[in-house]
């Protein structure tokens, strides 16, 4: 901070106004979240003035069956959607990277559409689609989450494909050919040579898919029924009715979950790896 060497022309980051700018931006990004977390421990219903430490809103949130159910639903959907997206996304990436085939441009373009099309339009499309095909809504858990999970896979797997394809660009095809020359089957070459190479991209893609799924409100809002509430949809209805400290407590739990996931990713990839993949 208090480095004595003179500031070099390109050391913009050491200029005071630049530092204040970054500091203020970080304050803007983090102050709301940090205050929300602090006030989740506040012993007051009005939630404005600090009245003392309490855990009672956590107790309330964790005893709120519908909130916990929503959280479990969200995590289940995210886990299912991540796994399927990982498989479909990796296959799509390999197909586009490796083969020349008719209508390739069309397939590639269509695959990037779920990323571009506004969430609201995708949500509406799924609402109409599941109504049109009479998708059963009274299935036992977790099958009743299938409609939401399908919708999530559709917007998650193109992201996985994108990340994996970027990684594939650095793969030396000769390695695979060497493996095949040495007697490996197509499948063995894929499993033992290609798959280890794309593993970091798979980790990054999985993380991306998981957060995207966990985060999604709009598309889920249109595909969820009264029995299939997810965490964001539940929080939305709680916020609509009234702002309660219970929502703060539940939100804090989810924020901490995100931070933990991020740090797991950091451990797996290193902070540089994360920065590069996103």
């Amino acid at each position: 901070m208090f480095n004595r060497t003179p500031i070099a022309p390109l050391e913009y980051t050491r200029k005071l106004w630049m530092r204040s700018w970054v500091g203020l931006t970080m304050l803007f990004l983090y102050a709301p979240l940090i205050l929300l977390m602090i006030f989740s421990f506040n012993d007051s219903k009005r939630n404005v003035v600090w009245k003392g430490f309490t855990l009672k809103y956590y107790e309330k949130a964790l005893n709120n069956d519908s909130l916990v159910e929503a959280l479990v639903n969200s995590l289940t959907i995210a886990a299912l959607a991540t796994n399927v997206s990982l498989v479909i996304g990796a296959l799509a990436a390999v197909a586009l990277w490796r083969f020349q085939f008719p209508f390739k441009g069309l397939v590639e373009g269509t695959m990037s559409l779920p990323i571009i099309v506004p969430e609201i339009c995708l949500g509406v499309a799924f609402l109409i689609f599941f109504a049109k095909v009479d998708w059963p809504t009274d299935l036992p858990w977790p099958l009743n989450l299938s409609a939401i999970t399908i919708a999530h896979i559709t917007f998650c797997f193109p992201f996985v494909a994108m990340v994996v394809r970027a990684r594939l660009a650095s793969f030396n095809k000769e390695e695979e050919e060497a493996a095949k020359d040495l007697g490996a089957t197509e499948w063995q070459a894929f499993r033992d040579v290609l798959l280890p190479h794309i593993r970091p991209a798979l980790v990054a893609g999985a993380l991306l898919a998981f957060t995207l799924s966990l985060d999604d409100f709009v598309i889920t809002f249109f595909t969820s029924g009264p029995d299939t509430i997810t965490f964001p949809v539940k929080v939305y209805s709680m916020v609509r009715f009234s702002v309660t400290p219970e929502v703060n407590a539940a939100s804090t739990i989810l924020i901490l979950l995100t931070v933990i996931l991020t740090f797991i990713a950091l451990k797996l990839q290193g902070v540089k790896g994360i920065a590069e993949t996103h």
Partner: protein
Amino acid sequence: MSGALQDWKSQKKPFAAVVSAPVFWLALFFVAPMAIVWLYSFGQNAGPVDIEISGTLDNYKRATEWLYVSIFLKSFAVAALTTLLCLIIGFPVAMAITFAAPKWRPWLLLGIMLPFWTNLLIRTYALMALMGTNGYMNKGLAGLWEGASWLRTLVGMQPLEAWTPVQLLYNNFAVVLGLVYVHLPFMVLPLYSALDRLDKSLIEASLDLGAGHFKTFMQIVVPLAAPGIVAGVMITLIPALGAYLTPDLMGGTDSQMIANVIERQFKRANDWPFGAALSFLLIYAMFILIAFQSMRANKVKEV
């Protein structure tokens, strides 16, 4: 390093193994739903639950009514303002990250990305709590107000009247602020990746040759970072244009954006064909934006 592409005919089995699942999924769970929406946009309500696809253009005609055109224009204006603010706030941040010491850089990037991974609804809610009439923004403003009042008494003037909390939420200001809050990381990341690739010796050369920092910035840094600026603008503008949650929770009755109008057709007004037509108009607007961008990208390549 990657060699030539293989023709699918030479390896039919592996090709089928990798291509069938993604294509099947896309066709069934993306193209089919979108196609149904598209067909519905040419339909009309034929009963409480039935929709007849009659090929009518009435839904699109209705969308050209001033009420809806103005909402489209307003959504675009709000999205454009959001993008501009994100660019103004984000550019110095991206510069700072680019020129930060190598050991700090990843942590600053992480600092930008962590909110991006945090749930959108929670972030919106956290900002709302801050902006409420009892929230900290109002407290801060009250502090400033009292300070100003005290300064006035110092110079012998009448103190200002007592502070009354202002309604910061439920108006257009709140919507723009909320959208900036949510989309800022989208802008910073592509800007950073463009600036990071920039050859720093060019900046040094410009400074050595006597150009000031501002001139260097405008004539060297901005043109060289143009691809990142365009990418950042697109990646912010497109989701901001289709934003639903922020205007819904933070906006007032006059802050409706196009996504809110679409939602209303499906959840309350129960006019699915009209909602479908509006959805497709929004999608076409996105396509036009993307076409502009790729036209521009091609032009740059030609030069």
